[in-house]
């Protein structure tokens, strides 16, 4: 009896998973991520921006928000332009953090921090659809590229929340 109940529950879980997967449909035809820029005083290497660009594209592909995630500067058909977006952004603040402070004080002191603003713009009329403010904090001993990973994940998550729910 217990085995049968467990099997029925498993079947329901499987069906629920299947329907949830089907719910994820693309909101945009194409999404183009551009290389972000840094404001004056932000000391991040060009390799950071390269990696962040790759991560953002990877996260956008995973989120399935767009049918196609295109590279920077790729041409889009005029018919698809109204349903396409371009993501640009700026790193507004970067603090290296301090491993000593982090170890001695703790409670969030000395953490490495990154703030960036991401703009989602419609390709056809350049209308700003949304602005996302991202703030990431990581351990100062971690690689700066880890921050890029977290920031890209947060942007993709926020976009999904914003556009998939509006839809």
């Amino acid at each position, binding site marked *: 009896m217990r085995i049968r109940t467990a099997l029925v529950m498993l079947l329901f879980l499987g069906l629920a998973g299947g329907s949830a997967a089907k719910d994820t449909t693309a909101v945009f035809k194409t999404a183009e991520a551009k290389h972000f820029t840094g404001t004056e005083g932000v000391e991040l290497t060009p390799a950071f921006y390269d*990696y962040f660009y790759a991560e953002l594209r990877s996260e956008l592909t995973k989120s399935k928000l767009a049918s196609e995630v295109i590279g920077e*500067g*790729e041409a889009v058909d005029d018919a698809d332009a109204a349903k396409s977006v371009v993501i640009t952004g700026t790193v507004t603040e970067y603090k290296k953090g301090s491993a000593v402070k982090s170890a001695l004080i703790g409670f969030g002191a000395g953490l490495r921090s990154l703030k960036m603003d991401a703009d989602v713009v419609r390709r056809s009329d350049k209308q700003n659809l949304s602005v996302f403010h991202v703030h990431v904090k990581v351990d100062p001993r971690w690689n700066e*590229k*880890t921050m890029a990973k977290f920031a890209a994940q947060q942007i993709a998550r926020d976009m999904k929340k914003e556009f998939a729910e509006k839809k």
Partner: protein
Amino acid sequence: MCITGRLAGNFVLATVLFAFHARAVADEPKPKPENIIGVHLTEPVAPQKFEHAPKFWVSDVTDRSGNPQPMLVLKSRGGIFLDRQPTIIVRESLEESLKSANLLAADANSADLTVRVYLFHFGLAEGSGLDFFGKVEYSAIVKNPKTGETAEVKATGTSIAKGAARKKNVQKNVQDDLEESLKDATRNFLRGQQLKEAVALLWKGGNEAQKPEANP
């Protein structure tokens, strides 16, 4: 006695240094059949539609990466090597894709536009350490052989593949990562706005040069 002791000390130090150096040389990865990967386009990339559909010819691909070992992709874990030079891989990917859309000329003489590629990066770049970050970056000089006019087109392809613990999986993930970044770079070049503008500019220049001069 003191001098003999110093000499003996120096000799021991030199022997230790030599041993370390010999070990480092022995650790240098070498290409073997089991650590060589083949990177190809899984399928040709469809280029964008051009107004006049010119015929291209890839005249040359030059390595400008400054990498002394361009075929060594990963140094750790016994090394991972490419089966061919990156320049050959890039040329092949471009020619395959152009051919699939009937945009590849039969030879250099019959081409409307020639493409000379300068390869700046092919392989893995520094990532977060948790994954593999593949990057292919090049710049192409598109030239109209009739007028001699040129235009520059840049292309970049990136890909992120998950890390792995087993050597076999590392090799597979790195191969997938490089193939994806090669495909991305080829697509970025062939479907880019820069190429569209370059073709429009060079085609216009070529047609104007061909027109006979009007007599007053």
